[in-house]
């Protein structure tokens, strides 16, 4: 406890980012440190490139120290340690988990393992103190595309997910096809603003009637075929139109399914989470569609949409308040079902 508030220290290391955060009473962010966003050069005396941020082991102690320092919290004041237990890359998850366990044992603090997607969803609580379940959640990122019904802080139902590529991955791959570079999401978002979304139409893949699942692998092939056909015919390609057409096809499916799912379930709130939630066109389309149906939309700030530990701390706190707890025998899970986590 610090100043009468419950203190959670959280660690996230499921993919590229090593992150640590300190939360007060679950929702108040005292610090939120993400390895790729700090001055790595200064902190580590060398540049840690994108994938090499997989060197979680090098980063983890440092981000934890920074999180505690910035929050002005001592180990004695911590009440709970939260960590991502899956899904993700096992080797990466294990670094966060081993650190959390070691701190839990050394400091004598309780430990909770959190599902990564539960974390993303919990990001919405951080900036909205009054937000409470139930609500519908749309999680769209480089690794995930899911529609989840949040029944309670510890009860989730996955209504739909991708059957192949994640939405953010489709953006990255199509950006590559049209020669934009990495990361593809923001670059396509920007270029699409200059294009006409109706100039080049790509098929919207809705799958079977009533399904809330997604499939985005076909559209990348469709864009490739279009580019090749135009090239062979010697016609110039307007990449802004291609970007706009592609983006429209992907987002229309996402918005239709997410808002439809909420309306069908009688939910009056939708929260968006994950890196793709930062896409400006997606925000516009979600806002318009939600307004039409009388649904309130919550979109976290970009820093809380990407992988971070504040969201994990919030989720861990909520789980603790529901009476959940993990032991030092907790494992890392490459695959993990949020309904059972």
């Amino acid at each position: 406890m610090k100043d009468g508030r419950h203190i959670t220290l959280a660690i996230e290391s499921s993919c590229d980012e090593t992150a640590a955060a300190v939360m007060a009473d679950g929702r108040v962010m005292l610090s939120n440190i993400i390895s790729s966003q700090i001055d790595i050069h200064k902190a580590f005396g060398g540049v840690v490139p994108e994938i090499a941020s997989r060197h979680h082991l090098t980063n983890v102690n440092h981000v934890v120290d920074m999180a505690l320092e910035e929050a002005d919290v001592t180990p004695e004041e911590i009440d709970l340690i939260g960590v991502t237990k899956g899904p993700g890359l096992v080797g990466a998850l294990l670094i966060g988990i081993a650190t959390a366990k070691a701190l839990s044992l050394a400091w004598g603090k309780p430990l909770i393992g959190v599902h990564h997607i539960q974390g993303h969803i919990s990001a919405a609580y951080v900036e909205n103190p009054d937000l409470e379940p139930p609500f519908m959640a749309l999680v769209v990122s480089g690794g995930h595309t899911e529609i989840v019904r949040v029944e309670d802080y510890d009860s989730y139902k996955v209504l739909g997910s991708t059957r192949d590529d994640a939405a953010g991955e489709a953006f990255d791959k199509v950006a590559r096809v049209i020669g934009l570079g990495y990361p593809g999401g923001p670059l396509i978002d920007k270029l699409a603003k200059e294009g006409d979304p109706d100039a080049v139409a790509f098929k919207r893949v809705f799958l079977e009637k009533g399904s809330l699942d997604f499939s985005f692998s076909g559209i990348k092939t469709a864009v490739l075929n279009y580019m090749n056909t135009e090239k062979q015919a010697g016609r110039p390609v307007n990449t802004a139109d291609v970007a706009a057409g592609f983006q429209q096809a992907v987002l229309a499916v996402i918005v239709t399914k997410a808002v439809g799912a909420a309306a069908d379930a009688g939910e009056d709130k939708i929260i968006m989470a994950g890196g793709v939630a930062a896409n400006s066109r997606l925000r516009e389309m979600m806002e318009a569609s939600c307004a039409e149906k009388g649904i309130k939309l919550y979109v976290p700030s970009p820093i809380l949409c990407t992988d971070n530990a504040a969201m994990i701390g919030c989720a861990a706190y909520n789980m603790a308040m529901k009476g959940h707890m993990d032991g030092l025998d907790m494992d890392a899970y490459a695959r993990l079902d949020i309904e059972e986590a």
Partner: protein
Amino acid sequence: MKELIIKNEQETRLFALDLAKKLEKGSLVALSGDLGTGKTALTKYIAEGLGVTETVTSPTFTIIQEYRSGRLPLYHFDVYRVNDEEELFEIGYEEYFYGDGVCVVEWADLIDELIPEDALRIHIEYGKAPEERIYTCSF
């Protein structure tokens, strides 16, 4: 080297189901070919052949996806985002490549030095028709 013309996705499936029958503990299927040639689609059908019941999704973001519901564990790699072979050492790739299951590696040409000698290599190219693919197989 054997060259096969695969006319459509249905033929991809039949090829994969047949291949899956031959896979055993420690087998590694090394896939190469441009974006959109259907490496993940081929892997989905290999998984089906192994009896995997989970949905096989793209491993691009997480580098590895594991499936344990089939006849053998399936480790699906996408090494496109890996910058150098050193990074695979850090992931502990050898525990997968020489482990208890089957590995399917997309963009295997990027880590050629780490691919075992006896790997089943398949290089995929676009064919004449939009759905057609040409498989060059090492087996």
